[in-house]
């Protein structure tokens, strides 16, 4: 058994579960703002007003009778994703990457007919994937084509970038890469690789899988040391802008880099996990306290992102 003393953790400024819940989530996140992040459709609509791009919305299926229109719309499309608006943890998301005559090809390579997708839509509407089983809405989005410079690191799935935003300041970031163990999902506790990113430059720091440090991706075998995210300041500003959109003081912003459209917002999270600290090898507390002790907060997302890049890399 390997243990670390609480004094060392304190010195590293590691944020822990209880403190996150009491001092940050409970204090800075308004309960009334939660539906904005728990419902992907609402998130899309609200951030669009603040100039944050999301994968293009192709169709919203709200009622059973609208499903017939899905077939017409999907006729010309090559790739798209069907998502339940209130799904959590990637449940109920079906990704179609291409066509094979009349069949749709899923990300896993399986071929399905249109009727299968229609039944899937019915299930989403009935609330099969939503929290507590409440009736839901299905959204059909344009397929994200991951930027090849990043996509090659990931085993299947789309690599995404998680940025923790505190009171509008991007405080810490990491890149999440799917693995065979995580079944193509970018969930850290399912075995995805987390690569800490220097908030000042967007360069990779170190990487962890299952909370243990690694240097190579377990499936692709690529080195994780020299990853560099392009247009880093633009991404930070985008993440920062989500604060104005939702008003959530402490949240996780998940971004992807699309090959054609650049950075896109995938989803927001009102209870971001703590593993990001292990991927960075740094604690969140010094940065969070620096933001809390600011006498005059910056007003624009750009200023906040700049301040974060200049200041937090050292903390």
């Amino acid at each position, binding site marked *: 058994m390997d243990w*670390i003393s*609480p004094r*060392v953790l304190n010195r590293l400024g590691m944020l822990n*579960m209880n403190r996150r819940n009491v001092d940050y989530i409970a204090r800075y996140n308004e309960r009334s703002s939660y539906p904005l992040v728990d419902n992907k459709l609402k998130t899309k609509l609200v951030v669009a007003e603040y100039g944050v791009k999301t994968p293009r919305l192709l169709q919203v299926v709200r009622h059973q009778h609208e499903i017939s229109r899905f077939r017409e719309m999907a006729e010309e499309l090559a790739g798209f994703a069907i998502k339940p608006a209130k799904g959590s943890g990637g449940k109920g998301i079906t990704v179609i990457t291409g066509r094979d005559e009349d069949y749709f090809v899923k990300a896993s390579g399986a071929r399905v007919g249109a009727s299968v997708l229609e039944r899937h839509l019915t299930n989403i509407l009935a609330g*099969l994937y939503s929290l507590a089983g409440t009736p839901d809405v299905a959204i059909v989005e344009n397929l994200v084509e991951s930027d090849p410079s990043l996509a090659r690191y990931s085993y299947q799935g789309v690599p995404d970038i998680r940025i923790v935003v505190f009171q509008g300041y991007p405080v810490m970031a990491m890149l999440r890469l799917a693995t065979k163990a995580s079944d193509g999902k970018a969930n850290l506790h399912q075995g995805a690789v987390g690569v800490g990113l220097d908030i000042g430059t967007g360069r990779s720091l170190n990487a962890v899988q299952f909370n243990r440090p690694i240097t190579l991706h377990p499936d692709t075998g690529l080195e994780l040391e020299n990853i560099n995210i392009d247009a880093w300041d633009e991404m930070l500003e985008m993440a920062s802008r989500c604060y104005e959109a939702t008003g959530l003081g402490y949240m996780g912003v998940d971004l992807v880099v699309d090959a054609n459209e650049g950075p896109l917002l995938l989803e927001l999270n009102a209870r971001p996990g703590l593993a990001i600290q292990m991927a960075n090898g740094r604690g969140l507390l010094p940065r969070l306290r620096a933001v809390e002790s600011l006498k005059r907060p910056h007003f624009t997302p750009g200023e906040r992102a700049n301040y974060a890049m200049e200041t937090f890399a050292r903390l």
Partner: protein
Amino acid sequence: MNSPSRLPFYIAVFLLISAGISLAVWRHIELGIPWLTGEQRPVWMVEARVDFNGTGEPVVASLNVPEQPPGFRILTEQAASPGYGFSIIDKAGSRRAEWTKREVAGPQTLYFKAQFIPDPDAEPSPPAQPPKTKRLFWEEPEATAVREILSKAEARSSTPESMTRELIKLMQPDTRIQNTTLLVSGENYLQLLVDMLNHSGIPARTADGLKLEDARRRQQLTPFLQIYNGERWLTLNPKTAAQGVPEDLLLWRQGSESLLDVVGGSNSEISFSMLRQTIPALQLAAMEADDNGLGFLSFYELPIEEQSMFRMLLLLPLGALVVAFMRIVIGIRTSGTFMPVLIAVAFVQTTLVPGLIAFLSVVSIGLLMRGYLSSLNLLLVSRISALIILVIFITAGLSIFGYQMGFSTGMTVTFFPMVIIAWTIERMSILWEEEGGQEVLIQGSGSLFVAICAYLLMSAPLAGHLTFNFPELHFTILGLILLMGQYTGYKLSELRRFSPMKVYD
């Protein structure tokens, strides 16, 4: 990170905790509810036996009974005397037990039993009005003797107490002077003392005390002298002038009323027998609770059925405390927040090992069946409903199977809350699909571990005793839980989870 706005919260928590503890301490002192189970208290059972011969006439036998003897509290009183009408009559200054019967002939025996609890703090309430003295008319030459003795005693004393002591000394045989020898003759010593004290302006009276010794029979009362010092009645030994009531002395009669009056009978006699008993302190407290008006604060007056229900209910906060501690401070993951408490409650009824076996078999059979349900793509509500019915089938099956195999413990399955088990199976199954079997094992064993801890705490006899007899201690538990809600430190499990961070230190 403590902003000043949290100060009222901490004050409130402190008040809650201290209110709980101080209420419990107060009730322990005031009602005598013991802290531990099985505590015993001594009780004196005193039986007065009245014998007389009936003469064929209507009889009224009236016995003076203790009202508020110093150093004792009366627990119970009862009379045993077949064929007699009985009542206890409270008159100002005296309490009398009265037996009545129309026609009485031959030897008769009446019993009066009372239980007394030693209590050093018990004091008779002081009289509302100061008692008056009775001046007697003395004839010469007694009058002169009395005057001289009194003036001698008065000269050597300053207070009613010292006056009495000096007077008793002067009346003793070895210090007797001629004056006293003139006055004292045989039996009249005590009455003479009372008369002389009254004559000198000190209210005085006689009292009868019973020396308490275990398992004594046919005891008689010994006379004592009581004087009023302006505030309350003081008891003195008329021979030694020792002041105060010895610990083993029960004052059966105080005041000037007679001990026993029998109208319609002859040769009346009274004798006492006594026995030292012990009764559970808790029973004692429950019996006394009704009397002193504090009974409404406890559950003793509820019907027995409700009492046993509350016994169970009042254990729940302990389980909640264990769950809060395990999740917040230790960091054990459980499936469903309070599922472990409910499982622990079921364990209390089934006992641990049969309960564990029953629980594990129901859940694992349920998980197998749920596997089929999940392939049907049912909606949540109907899935859970189907699961509840399946769980009932499983428990019924296990009960019948266990019974036929000769294990009556199989029946204990029915104590588990069906809906909770159904939800547990549902959650476990979803967890299995999403996170894999390892996570199911972690959360499942975490839940069971917490449930067993809660069970061990809840099934401790002391826990049941304290929660039921001191329900105010739940304020303290509430305070502790609120306090834990503010705990922002590291969980024990996080010290392990974050251990790879060592390299960055």
